[in-house]
C-alpha cells in the first residue's frame, strides 16, 4: 500500500505514513484530500466558511480540524481548497509533529497563493523562497531593507518613519521601513536558504519576532519594538563587552481591525511548539524565530559537570534562552554562533542556572 499524499510505501498496519505523516487511508483508494461535500451550490458561499467563528487572539488549534481550519494558522478553509489561503500550507498535510512535540512548518506547495485584502501573495521556490505580491489598489505592504527582489515600475514605494530613530540606529536596526502601495507587483526574498513563514495575525493577536527575520507585512499590521532585557557582560582584559543573545530589541507585530499577514524568513527548517502554562524549554538564543507575547524568556546558564578542575573561563559553558509558556515558540535549525558564550561572565540580566 502506498500513501495517497506522498506516495511512500506504508507499513502494513501503520496508521500514519512514515514519509509525510499523513494518516494512512483505510480504504484502498479513499484519498483524504477532501471531505465528501457533494454538490456545493455554485452561487452560494461554501457552508464551512459561513459558520461564524469569533476567536480573538486564540492560538491556532494544535489538532487540525480538516477542511474547516488550517492547522498552522487557524484560517478558515474552503472545503475545496488544497492549500490554505492564509499561510499557504498544504491542506492535505497533517501537522507533522516530531516525537518530542515540535510541529514542523506545514509543507507548502510551490506557487502556493495567499490572500490578504484584495491582494494575493504567491510564494515561489522551495530553496530560497520568493514572496511575489500582487497588490490591489488601496492595499499596501511594508518591508525591511535589502529584501526587495524586483517590482513593477508602477508600484509606488515610499518610506515609513519609525519612532525611536536614535536608539534604533545605535542598535543597528533599520531606521526607516519601506512601504509599497498597490496596484502593482512587488517581490521579496532573503539571502539564505530557508523557509518563508506566513503568520496571519487575527485582530488583537500579536507576535514577537527576533530582529532581522522580518520580511514583509501588510499595511494593517502594527509594528512596534521593545527591549528584550536579555543580556550578559563579559570581560576580556580591560574590555567589557555586552552581548545580546536574542538581540537588544525585538519586533512586535499586532493585528488590528482586520486580519493581517506577516511574512518572516528563517534560515534552515522551522519548528514550532505550543508551550503549556509554566512549561519550559531551553533553546539556543540565536535559533529563536518568534514567540507569543505571553511567553516569557530569560537566560539560563548551564555548568556541565567536569571531572577535573574548572577554571574561570569555563564558568558559563552554555548560555541558553529559557522560554516559559503559555504560548507558541518557533525555532530555526540554522543559528549563528553566539559571541561570548563560554567566556567569563561578569553581569547578566535575570537568569536561572543549573550546575551538574
Amino acid at each position, binding site marked *: 500500500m502506498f500513501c495517497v499524499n506522498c506516495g511512500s510505501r506504508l507499513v502494513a498496519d501503520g496508521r500514519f505514513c512514515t514519509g509525510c505523516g499523513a494518516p494512512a487511508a483505510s480504504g484502498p483508494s479513499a484519498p483524504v484530500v477532501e471531505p465528501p461535500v457533494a454538490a456545493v451550490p455554485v452561487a452560494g458561499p461554501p457552508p464551512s466558511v459561513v459558520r461564524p467563528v469569533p476567536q480573538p487572539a486564540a492560538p491556532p488549534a494544535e489538532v487540525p480540524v480538516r477542511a474547516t481550519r488550517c492547522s498552522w494558522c487557524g484560517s478558515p478553509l474552503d472545503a475545496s481548497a488544497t492549500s490554505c489561503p492564509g499561510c499557504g500550507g498544504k491542506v492535505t498535510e497533517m501537522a507533522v509533529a516530531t516525537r518530542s512535540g515540535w510541529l514542523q512548518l506545514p509543507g507548502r506547495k510551490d506557487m502556493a497563493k495567499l490572500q490578504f485584502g484584495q491582494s494575493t501573495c504567491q510564494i515561489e521556490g522551495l530553496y530560497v523562497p520568493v514572496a511575489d505580491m500582487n497588490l490591489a489598489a488601496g492595499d499596501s505592504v511594508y518591508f525591511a531593507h535589502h529584501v526587495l527582489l524586483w517590482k513593477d515600475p508602477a508600484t509606488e514605494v515610499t518610506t515609513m518613519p519609525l519612532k525611536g530613530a536614535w536608539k534604533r540606529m545605535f542598535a543597528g536596526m533599520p531606521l526607516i521601513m519601506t512601504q509599497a502601495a498597490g496596484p502593482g507587483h512587488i517581490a521579496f526574498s532573503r539571502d539564505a536558504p530557508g523557509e518563508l513563514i506566513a503568520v496571519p495575525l487575527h485582530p488583537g493577536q500579536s507576535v514577537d519576532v527576533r530582529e532581522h527575520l522580518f520580511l514583509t507585512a501588510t499595511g494593517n499590521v502594527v509594528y512596534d519594538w521593545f527591549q528584550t532585557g536579555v543580556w550578559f557582560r563579559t570581560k576580556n582584559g580591560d574590555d567589557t563587552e555586552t552581548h545580546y543573545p536574542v538581540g537588544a530589541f525585538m519586533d512586535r507585530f499586532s493585528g488590528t481591525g482586520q486580519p493581517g499577514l506577516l511574512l518572516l524568513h528563517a534560515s534552515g527548517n522551522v519548528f514550532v511548539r505550543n508551550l503549556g502554562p509554566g512549561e519550559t524549554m531551553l533553546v539556543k538564543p540565536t535559533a529563536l524565530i518568534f514567540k507569543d507575547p505571553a511567553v516569557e524568556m530569560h537566560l539560563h546558564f548551564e555548568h*556541565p559537570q567536569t571531572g577535573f578542575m574548572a577554571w574561570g573561563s569555563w564558568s558559563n559553558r552554555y548560555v541558553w534562552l529559557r522560554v516559559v509558556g503559555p504560548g507558541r515558540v518557533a525555532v530555526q535549525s540554522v543559528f549563528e554562533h553566539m559571541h561570548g558564550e563560554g567566556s567569563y561572565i561578569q553581569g547578566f540580566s535575570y537568569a536561572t542556572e543549573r550546575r551538574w
Partner: protein
Amino acid sequence: MSTPQAEQFERLQCQWCQSLNEKSALACGSCGAPLDVRNLVSESGWREAPRIRDMTEIHFSSSTCQVEGEIVPVAEINLSPGDAIFFEHHVMLWKDDTVPLTLMALSGGLKRAFGGMPFLISVATGPGRIAFSRDATGELVVLPLHPGMEIDVREHAFLLSSHQIQYSFVRIKGLANILFGGQGMYMDRFVTAGSPGLLILHGYGNVFERVLKAGESIMLEPGAFLYKDSSVTMDVEFQKLGTGFFGGATMSLARVTGPGRVGIQSMYVHHKTE
C-alpha cells in the same frame, strides 16, 4: 538491491551502511537511508549520501534519533537511561533542562588548542531529549560504526557520536603547509571497540562517497574532504600552474589513496594559499 541471500531471510540490506533491516522497513534503522533508494553512483564512481527522509527515525543502543527538516536537518535524540552522546560546542539547538551535561577532557589539550580544535567535548546523558543542528545548509551523514572500524573526520564536521565510540585525533603532516601555515592539521578519529556505535556528521552542501581500491588515488580540493577510513592515506601535492610568463601559481591538492572510503562535501571551505 538486496543480495539473494538476504532475500531468503526476508531482510533488506541497506546500500549505504550494509545493515540488515526488516522487509517492511522504509528506512534503514541504523543510518536512516531510504531503503528503496537505488544505489546511485555517478559515472566517475561517486555515490551520493542518502537524502534522509524527513522525520526518519534511527536506532542506536536503546535510544533513537529522529532526523527532521530537509534544508538544514536537525538530529533530535531521545536518550534512554544509560546511553550518552558526545559533541562539540555550538551544535546544540535545544534540550530538556533535565538532561545532565558533563565535560570530557581530552588528551593533548594544548596542542589541540593551537590546532584550533576544541579540547573539551560535552557529554549528554540520558534519559531525556536533546537536539542538534549546524550553521549552514547541508546534509546529515549517518555513519553507523561496526566494531573495529576507524574513521577520520575533518575537524568540526562531527555533529555527535554515541558513547560507545572512542574519540581521539590524528595529525596529518602533509597538509601542514596549506591549512595552518606550519601548525599542522588535526583530524578527528573515531574508533569502535567492542560494540557498534553511531556517528553523525554534517557536511556542507551535498555529500558524496567513493570507495577506493588499494593503491587507487584521487586528487581532492582539501576543503572538500569530509571523512575517510583510516586505511586511506592523504598527502598534499603542489601543482604548478604555468602561465607561460614568469611566476605562475601553485595549486595544492590532496592526494587520497585507497583502500577504503572517502567522503567529500560539495560546498567546501577554501583555504587560501600564499
